């Protein structure tokens, strides 16, 4: 009996051991063991580029810790030009329900893998990639066959070490990248095979101590929040974490200038109460607001600010209802813009309106930043009513409300019953709303810097519970600073427009089109929605991106260059059908025309994609030699010109050519009078009666255009007389030519008759009669000369009188 029990126990323990999956990878011929971490999974996605959308798709059990779009083949020699692995997104998902992997059935997830931890308990992610080193280059065939068998894709070889190949798994593969890498290695056919394991440093965007509490910057579902309800800062930081040239003034109770996590303080500061520098600390509020804007990031300490590399300028005021306080706040605003502040952050209100404050704000908005205008942000207030003063005093101010970590307006639970993170019962009732509200930002339980020691809200150097629209406003100040870091030429109203138009429409609020609100749909409680640092910074950057290149493309190579591309983006070039691709890199793209006789418009387009958005820039070109010039003289085209007069012909925007390449010529009754070469225009003169013809052609690098031919007529009156010889009378017939004269030909003529002594014996008045009967009874027999004159045209005929 005893023996039987021992055997059963032995079998159970064997089954248990074998039932446990063994995770390892091969390194230099040795197995390195890993422990599975069921909290997290790495997923590869198609058609999802937004953290928020992914959160909606994966449901409540999972939350999105990170989402990123990446081109996996940038550094590789592409093996398969049609690789499906280009421009996919990947994400890290976290769960508390370790057994629920049902979301992996989503169509959008094309690969998933568990997380692991190593002997130091570090989180280790497993991507879809693994690397195989061939023994010799001829082994590529073996790799190809094995890849086909196990449904993995060879993406390409390493540019510097061509024996190393990168392969990619999908859900259809035999196993994930770890299992498949092991499987390949264990065939003994390859020199090495290693999965793409990702260690902690890439999984969090910064290493600050309390960053995991900063749901406002990266909401992973902490404390029951909704993942993605944040300002999307990690992706924005891939573009910029700020520039030292951008200064954010914080008009508040003064920033603690020696706080260990506020390292980027401007040397300039001001105390409005005494009218002197430096600023002083008159309360805890300023240090808390400042941390949200500009606490140092990635310093293994405390928290990270929105714009950690921008400068903070401390302007202190008591913010109390003391005599002269309001004028001093106005002084603070004026001092800030006059001393180089780009953004002025205000997390305060005033129960009474003050024209002095209004004027100071107006000065900052119009005169600050050399006339580009300071960005002025104000908190909306917390009394669950209309937006407070001064936030409501000027439409150029950005008025900011607060939202909680689930996407609801911030407030006490009795005011916002659905809030997952309400303000405290003894707090003010709720974030202000209504007509003057522009945007919202996180404003409940925001971790930030606190005055050191026991002086602040908390006894440590940080507080985790800063709340109110006081906390919301600094987020926008930080985002504006990031935008100015990448594009300092933006005006304050451009920044406001971008911030408003890039908001995320969070929560179940009724965003709709509202008169006077031109930057998208808007809601009474949320304004344009939750600010999105990533989209706003990308949009700001996109305004300095450009593509340059020739305006004419011939059959020789033409290279186009992308300028000012933000980091962390993938780039795709495309050209019109009349162009042929030659070569392409990240920032340069070379094409040529199929034919110089294409003579049509074309384009080269570059699409820049980042986690923060996509923008397409297009450079329009002319392909081939120019089209036929389009010519128009000043005014309407003349078909007739008066003999002896001049006229002007211009080329207007000849397709595909510079108009100054015009080559002019004339024949017949007109001559060019101002040269024939290298001009967009030419003067002609009518030097004889009859038809005149002129032509012009243009040229570009691809050749000459077709010739445009124009013609004019230099018109005349057709005079006749009879009888001749005459006796008692002679009849003059005058027929005006049938062309449309456009008023350039004389409408009247006159007749003079001279005797052979050149004396005038008859002179008519100016007339347009077609038949003029002249009595000749008085003329003695002899020879006479009749002069017909119409404008500058004169014609002479001989008349014989015989009585």
């Amino acid at each position, binding site marked *: 009996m005893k023996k039987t029990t021992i055997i059963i126990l032995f079998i159970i323990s064997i089954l248990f051991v074998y039932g446990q999956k063994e995770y390892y990878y091969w390194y230099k011929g040795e197995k390195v063991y890993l422990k599975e971490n069921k909290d997290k999974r790495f997923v590869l996605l198609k058609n999802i580029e937004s953290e928020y959308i992914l959160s909606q798709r994966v449901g409540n059990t999972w939350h999105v810790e990170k989402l990123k779009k990446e081109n996996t083949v940038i550094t590789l020699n592409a093996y398969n030009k049609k690789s499906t692995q280009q421009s996919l997104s990947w994400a890290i998902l976290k769960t508390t329900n370790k057994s629920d992997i049902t979301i992996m059935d989503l169509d959008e997830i094309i690969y998933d893998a568990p997380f692991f931890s190593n002997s130091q308990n570090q989180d280790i992610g497993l991507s879809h990639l693994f690397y195989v080193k061939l023994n010799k280059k001829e082994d590529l065939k073996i790799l190809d066959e094995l890849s086909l068998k196990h449904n993995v894709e060879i993406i390409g070889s390493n540019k510097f070490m061509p024996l190393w190949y990168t392969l990619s798994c999908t859900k259809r593969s035999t196993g994930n990248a770890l299992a498949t890498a092991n499987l390949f290695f264990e065939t003994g056919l390859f020199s090495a095979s290693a999965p793409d394991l990702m260690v902690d440093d890439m999984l969090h965007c910064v290493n600050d101590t309390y960053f995991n509490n900063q749901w406002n910057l990266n909401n992973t579902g902490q404390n029951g929040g909704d993942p993605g309800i944040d300002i999307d800062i990690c992706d924005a930081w891939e573009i910029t974490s700020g520039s030292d040239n951008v200064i954010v003034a914080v008009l508040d109770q003064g920033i603690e200038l020696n706080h260990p996590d506020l390292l980027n303080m401007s040397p300039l500061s001001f105390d409005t109460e005494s009218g002197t520098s430096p600023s002083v600390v008159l309360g805890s509020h300023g240090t808390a607001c400042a941390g949200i804007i500009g606490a140092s990031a990635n310093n293994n300490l405390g928290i990270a600010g929105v714009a950690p590399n921008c400068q903070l300028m401390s302007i202190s005021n008591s913010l109390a*209802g003391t005599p002269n306080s309001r004028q001093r706040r106005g002084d603070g605003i004026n001092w800030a813009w006059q001393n180089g502040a780009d953004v002025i952050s205000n*997390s305060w*209100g005033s129960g009474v309106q003050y024209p002095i404050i209004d004027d100071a704000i107006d000065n900052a908005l119009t005169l600050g930043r050399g006339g580009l205008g300071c960005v002025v942000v104000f908190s909306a207030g917390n009394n669950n009513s209309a937006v407070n003063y001064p936030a409501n005093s000027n439409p150029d101010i950005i008025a900011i409300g607060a939202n909680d970590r689930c996407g609801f307006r911030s407030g006490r639970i009795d005011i916002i019953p659905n809030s997952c993170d309400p303000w*405290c019962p*003894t*707090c*003010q009732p709720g974030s202000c709303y209504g007509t003057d509200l522009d945007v919202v930002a996180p*404003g409940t339980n925001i971790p930030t810097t606190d005055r050191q020691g*026991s002086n602040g809200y908390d006894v440590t150097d940080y507080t985790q519970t800063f*709340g109110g629209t006081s906390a919301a406003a600094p987020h926008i100040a930080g985002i504006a600073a990031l935008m100015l870091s990448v594009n300092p030429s933006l005006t304050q109203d451009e920044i406001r427009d971008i911030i408003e138009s890039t908001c995320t429409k969070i929560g179940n609020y009724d965003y709709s089109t509202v008169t006077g609100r031109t930057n998208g749909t808007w809601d009474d409680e949320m304004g344009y929605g939750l600010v999105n640092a990533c989209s706003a910074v990308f949009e700001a950057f996109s305004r300095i991106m450009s593509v340059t290149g020739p305006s004419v493309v011939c059959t020789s190579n033409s290279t186009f260059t992308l300028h000012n591309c933000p980091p962390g983006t993938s780039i795709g070039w495309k050209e019109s059908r009349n162009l042929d691709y030659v070569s392409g890199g990240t920032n340069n793209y070379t094409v040529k025309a199929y034919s110089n006789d294409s003579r049509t418009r074309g384009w080269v387009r570059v699409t820049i994609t980042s986690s923060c958005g996509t923008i397409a820039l297009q450079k329009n070109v002319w392909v081939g030699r120019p089209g036929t010039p389009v010519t128009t003289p000043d005014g309407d085209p003349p078909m007739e010109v008066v003999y002896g007069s001049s006229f002007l012909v211009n080329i207007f925007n000849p397709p595909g050519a510079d108009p100054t390449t015009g080559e002019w010529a004339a024949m017949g009754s007109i001559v060019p009078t101002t040269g024939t070469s290298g001009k967009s225009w030419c003067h002609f003169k009518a030097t004889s009666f009859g038809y005149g013809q002129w032509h012009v052609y243009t040229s570009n690098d691809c050749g000459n255009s077709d010739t445009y031919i124009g013609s004019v007529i230099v018109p005349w009156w057709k005079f006749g007389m009879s009888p001749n010889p005459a006796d008692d009378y002679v009849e003059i017939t005058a027929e005006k030519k049938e062309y449309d004269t456009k008023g350039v030909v004389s409408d009247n003529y006159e007749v003079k008759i001279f005797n052979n002594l050149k004396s005038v014996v008859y002179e008519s008045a100016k007339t347009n009669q077609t038949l003029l009967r002249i009595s000749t009874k008085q003329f003695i027999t002899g020879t006479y000369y009749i002069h017909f004159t119409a404008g500058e045209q004169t014609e002479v005929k001989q008349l014989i009188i015989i009585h």
Partner: protein
Amino acid sequence: MKTIKKIILLCGIIVLTAFSCEKEKEDADDLEPIEIKKITDFGCDDCSIILKPEYVNNGYYMIDSENDFNKYVKYATGENIPSIDFEKYFLLIGTKSIEGGGSITDEKAEENNIEIIHTITITRDDTHIAGITLKYHAFLEKPIKEKAVRVEIIIEP
């Protein structure tokens, strides 16, 4: 005889009570300021004390023994924990939550022969913080005679 005794005793009690009340009423008008000591006054410049989180309730505690001190209070900061003579001092420590922003702008302690009053003045400000919890504490000398102790909080707009 028993009845007379009872009447005399009753009268005595009434007279004593009346006399006693009159005396208390007189003394209650003479409040004199008394010295407030902070934790830093006990030889530890970087020390700060707070109520343990479970005792933070928008009220205050009067602590007159080391046992109670250890039960309700913790050191938030400070390297060299000072020794406090609870034979001589007692501690008033508490919190006050207010809507919006503000700070303690005045703090004073006064006594007469029947009570000690610790008055905290909080002045609101124009910041747009949703709400704050202000912390206060005061070490006061124990009176020779037992007296009532209370904290009065004045919130100025």
